[in-house]
């Protein structure tokens, strides 16, 4: 303001012919990008980072993964017991300095077992989600890319499979197969991939008619290059969101199976089987239920929050949907 007033009071300067000479504009300089250029992924990351809730979910997940890795080791190192070692003279103990989360009905330490359970639940959730991803991308990629009759037949097939209730199929399989880590993951993925394949199909169908795909094709790119260099990377947003949200689904399904006695078998524990195990004495020994139940809820919550945040970050137009 002060400068402007001063400028107004000054008399008009006398102009010479030189003042009317064209200003020398450097064409190249106008093209220089002043703002740091962000790749799509940096941009997504910046949006995600500004979302406090989603970042909270991410931080909590990282902490839980660290806990699942080092938790049992710490207890082994401090007290010298593992998830199997039991002490029948100290069953159903409340939390103490020796047993941080108390002990269960066989005198096993709940701290070790809870973190081992988290480890198993996370492994099952992640493995199931990754296998779903693999099958879903291949199946969905073929449907979306080739279209036509191939798509119609494969899509009808997946629709018919999808109509068979997911949990019933897993229950049937695990009743027949002996429940183990491998068979549980198999049972969870046998129809679990269908949703992912539909997401991939939809994205590829949308993207395959874009100009850059045509351009690449006209330059002689083959199917493989088109799919892996152009189509899938551009479809990765929805794929990642679906992946993130399918992890808690698998963890929930596993805990439900454990509840029916079809989950991982003792002495291995998953969070679901620990909750199931705690049900019998839960009125008297609430800590046996509390820690695994709390942890499984936190894991589910964190994955859901992170997934929602990722969806908003990858496609801001979907916000509040």
């Amino acid at each position, binding site marked *: 303001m002060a400068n402007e007033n001063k400028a107004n009071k000054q008399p008009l300067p006398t102009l010479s012919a030189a003042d009317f000479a064209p200003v020398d504009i450097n064409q190249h300089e106008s093209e220089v990008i002043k703002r740091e250029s962000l790749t799509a992924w940096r941009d997504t990351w910046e949006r995600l980072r500004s979302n406090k809730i989603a970042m909270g979910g991410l931080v909590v997940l990282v902490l839980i993964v660290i806990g699942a890795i080092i938790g049992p080791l710490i207890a082994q190192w401090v007290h010298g017991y593992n998830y199997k070692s039991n002490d029948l003279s100290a069953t159903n103990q409340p939390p103490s300095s020796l047993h941080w989360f108390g002990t269960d009905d066989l005198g096993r330490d709940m701290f070790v077992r809870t973190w081992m359970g988290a480890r198993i639940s996370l492994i099952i959730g992640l493995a199931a989600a990754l296998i779903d991803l693999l099958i879903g991308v291949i199946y969905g990629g073929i449907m979306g890319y080739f279209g036509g009759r191939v798509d119609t037949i494969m899509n009808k097939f997946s629709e018919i499979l999808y109509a068979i209730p997911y949990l019933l199929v897993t229950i049937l399989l695990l009743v027949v197969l002996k429940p183990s880590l491998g068979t549980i993951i198999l049972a969870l993925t046998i129809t679990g991939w269908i949703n992912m394949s539909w997401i991939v199909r939809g994205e590829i169908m949308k993207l395959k008619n874009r100009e850059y795909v045509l351009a690449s094709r006209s330059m002689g790119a083959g199917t493989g290059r088109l799919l892996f260099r152009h189509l899938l990377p551009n479809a990765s947003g929805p794929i990642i969101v679906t992946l993130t949200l399918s992890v808690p689904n698998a963890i929930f399904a596993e805990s*439900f199976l454990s509840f029916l006695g079809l989950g991982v078998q003792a002495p291995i524990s998953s969070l679901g089987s620990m909750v199931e195990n705690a049900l019998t004495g839960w009125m008297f020994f609430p800590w046996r239920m509390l820690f695994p139940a709390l942890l499984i809820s936190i894991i589910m919550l964190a994955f*859901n929050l992170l997934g929602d945040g990722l969806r908003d970050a990858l496609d801001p137009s979907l916000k509040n949907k």
Partner: protein
Amino acid sequence: MARYITTKFLYTLLSLFILITATFFLMKAIPGDPFMSEKEVPAPIRARLEAQYGLDKPEIVQYVNYLGNILQGDLGISMKKLNQEVSHIIGQTFGVSLRLGLIAVVVSTIIGVALGLLAALYHRKMIDSVVMVLAVLGIAVPSFVLASLIQYLFGLKLHWFPITGLKDVLGYVLPVAALSAQPIAFIARLTRSSMLEVLHADYIKTAKAKGLKWPAILWKHVIRNGILPVVTYVGPMTANVITGSVVIERIFGIGGIGKVYVDSITNRDYTMIMGITLFYGIILMFARFVTDIVYVLVDPRIKLTSSKEG
């Protein structure tokens, strides 16, 4: 429309057929047979037993018989409960589960829509945030955790409600609450996002501009249009309530079909497991079929792609 329904119905039947086939061959894959016991059964007796149950015939004949029996509603005989027909046990126990499930469905729809509507009307206000936090919690907390928690808190510690059983109205409160939490959360989220969309639509502005009173706008335009997506949730909600009820019945000691299911899995009562699985499968597939049809019926904007083809 008729064509659309027929196609959908045929696909549903096809899926059901696959499930039935799967149950049959999985049963065959189980080692051992129903007549295995600690004592060796003499060969003539075994042969007679097998003849009585048709197990001496080739597998393909057994399969056709199995299909025929299911069509007549005969799901076989329980392997652990002597001489009890699976369909009879289902008939005895299903009523309890059905009543509990229906109450949960009604409660979740009413509360879910109300919460979603409130959140949408007070968008970005306090109520909105509270509802959204509750919705996220409702989706994240597994039903068995919630059930145990409220059983401990309101049943054991506060003595407000009975801990187990469905003896009176109060007995229903905790199981229904545990069963409805997740559907309420889903419905609230669905309703909120759909109502938000409707509230910003041009026809709401038009309605306001022509001087319609706000309650009338809300009832005639906002709710009518915003409630449509909730219909799509009928199928998933049925699935949710059934799986939830399997867990809830066990925790609250309710003698419904869910408890029979858990028990039969624990006892490896294979015919019972397969029978109840088929029964659940039929309900769930029927719910999905109804969802597809109702959704088209209530929303004429949805184009029927199948009716346009060839």
